[in-house]
């Protein structure tokens, strides 16, 4: 029977098919961080269990670390306890950790690929919903809860029920000023935040294949915003070239064997998908969100919706609630929305190509006087690379702050957060109420669009700054 890529990876990892319809799957790669792992380790200890495969596990502190000067350590007592606990747990159970002062430290979903820990055809899990990012490598990457983290630590397996197959085809080429962030925002707008619930999404089509490895990561990353269990893309030469010579990539004859295997990873031509949609690249424009759900998207030349024009009562109430929270009036042009802050970073858009895209727009320009803006590179290595290319100077000269790597204002766990009613143009992944700080108002967009917003002082069309 013809199979999808998801079917194939699933079958390759099946340890045991249980009678109740669930399956025990082998986990090849387990990433952990300080926020969702302490309770898992604590339970391991109290039940006298060990970590089964510490060598298949990699740890990093990212959610709760400061992005300012780290020489004095972490001043927030609770954050410090959490980061110290991760260090203690890794030492006790023999797990490799990139600590806060390690150059390789960064956001868990950025360092996995960067180190070659993320590999095609594997099952990768992490106690974080944006684990979906790693699907860009043709891996089945699943976000899990803390109890499941404990299960993986103890057994190196995960109990799962098979999801449906959903293929999203994107054909054509990216128009000027349009990025993979705009593609995924448009997809989420189209399918809704629950549109992928119960499915694993495979992204396919000529536009997807034309994307760079990093652009693919942005697409897969936000798969969870569409509710799907995971999102993946068939791996190709670009992926293999990216992985070649990375510190944790296969070496020598293992590389040959791995590449031979990776080359076979694709959905069969006649594989059956339970759901399928197709988008055309030429129809995609620069996107922004206006509301408090990632599905609340509009093109940059669009308007804020009017709840009075909505007949569905749930949708009407939901639009009204979002507008109240966002402090926006119906029917205004999104380009008239004035912003206070700009955040460039996160596991969605904190990689080197993202910084290059933003820097290209900001070069020789100043950000608006009333705007305060920051760049938080996704990892120490991204930061170093950007500095070698002089991108830090471009950001600083335009008026941005240049910070240390971490999750930062994407989720406002550390000191980087919005004040009530502050409005932010953000390259992150969630515009939920309070996500970037209580009462804070988030507009999601691409790094280039964030740069354009910083210069204009309001949401703006990046194409204006491009030739």
């Amino acid at each position, binding site marked *: 029977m013809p199979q999808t890529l998801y079917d194939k990876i699933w079958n390759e990892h099946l340890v045991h098919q249980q009678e109740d319809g669930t399956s025990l799957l082998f986990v090849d790669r387990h990433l952990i961080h300080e926020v969702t792992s302490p309770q898992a380790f*604590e339970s391991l200890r109290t039940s006298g269990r060990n970590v089964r495969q510490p060598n298949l596990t990699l740890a990093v502190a990212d959610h709760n670390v400061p992005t300012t000067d780290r020489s004095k350590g972490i001043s927030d007592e609770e954050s410090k306890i959490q980061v110290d606990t991760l260090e203690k747990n890794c030492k006790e159970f023999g797990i490799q950790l990139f600590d806060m002062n390690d150059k390789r430290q960064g956001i868990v979903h950025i360092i996995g690929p960067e180190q070659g820990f993320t590999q095609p055809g594997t099952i990768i899990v992490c106690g974080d*919903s944006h684990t979906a990012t790693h699907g860009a490598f043709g891996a089945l990457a699943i976000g899990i809860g803390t109890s499941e983290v404990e299960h993986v630590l103890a057994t190196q397996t995960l109990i799962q029920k098979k999801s449906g197959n959903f293929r999203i085809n994107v054909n054509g080429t990216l128009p000027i000023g349009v990025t993979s962030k705009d593609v995924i925002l448009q997809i989420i707008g189209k399918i809704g935040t*629950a549109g992928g619930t119960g499915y694993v999404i495979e992204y396919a089509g000529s536009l997807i294949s034309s994307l760079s490895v990093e652009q693919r990561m942005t697409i897969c990353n936000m798969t969870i915003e569409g509710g799907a269990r995971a999102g993946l893309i068939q791996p190709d030469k670009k992926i293999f070239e990216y992985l070649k010579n990375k510190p944790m990539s296969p070496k020598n004859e293992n590389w040959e*064997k791995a590449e031979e295997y990776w080359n076979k990873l694709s959905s069969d031509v006649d594989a059956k998908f339970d759901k399928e949609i197709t988008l055309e690249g030429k129809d995609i424009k620069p996107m922004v969100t206006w509301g408090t759900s990632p599905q609340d998207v509009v093109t940059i030349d669009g308007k804020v919706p009017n709840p009075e024009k909505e007949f569905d009562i749930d949708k009407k109430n939901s639009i009204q609630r979002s507008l109240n929270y966002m402090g926006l009036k119906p029917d205004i042009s999104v380009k008239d929305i004035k912003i206070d802050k700009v955040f460039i970073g996160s596991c969605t858009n904190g990689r080197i190509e993202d910084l290059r895209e933003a820097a290209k727009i900001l070069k020789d320009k100043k950000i608006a006087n009333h705007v305060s803006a920051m760049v938080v590179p996704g990892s120490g290595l991204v930061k170093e690379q950007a500095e070698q290319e002089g991108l830090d100077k471009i950001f600083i000269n335009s008026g941005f702050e240049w910070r240390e790597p971490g999750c930062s204002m994407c989720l406002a766990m550390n000191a980087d957060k919005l004040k009530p009613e502050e409005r932010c143009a953000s390259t992150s992944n969630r515009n939920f*109420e309070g996500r970037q700080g209580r009462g804070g108002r988030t507009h999601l967009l691409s790094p280039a669009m964030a740069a354009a917003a910083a210069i204009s002082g309001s949401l703006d069309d990046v194409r204006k700054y491009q030739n």
Partner: protein
Amino acid sequence: MQKFNSLKSIPAYLPIVNIDTDMIIPAQFLKTIKRTGLGKNLFYAMRYDYNGTEIKNFILNQKPYNNSQILIVGKNFGCGSSREHAPWALLDFGITCVISSSYADIFYNNCFKNGILPIILEEDKIKELSEYSKRKEEISVDLKKEKIIFGNSEIKFEIDPFKKKCLLEGLDDIALSLEKEKKIFSFEKNLKNTKPWIFND
């Protein structure tokens, strides 16, 4: 894990769709290294004003809903972050049963690991049950029989047999998986031969 068998409670009705886990428990409360103590911060931004004072008209701040064990909510409940702190906060507050027309996958799975029963019902049934919340009348949930009993009527709900068993018996699924240890071991052994790069050997 604590068992779930049946319960009787006046349900609290929160008619908001797409309630995300950031709303259930905001990020500032994730700095804990414990599972307990999160109940006081459940739905923090809806429950307290900027001074930390309870907002009177929020349902969980009102009697008798501050003692509700059943929460009825809009569709796609628990979307967003995978944080298990969301079910921990519900549990710590005293809520052990959620009723919605749909849930986000990760949250749904997390509930079962913590003795919380998430029930899926059609929208019209939810509207019907919400009347009991408004009238402050109790409803009963019976997991074994897979039904909700209210007034003189009852509604059947469906649940995966494995998840049902785990809840009813309070089973530790790690212990169950470790019973398959031999299978895991032989899988690993085979993997070392067929895909040696996985172990970096």
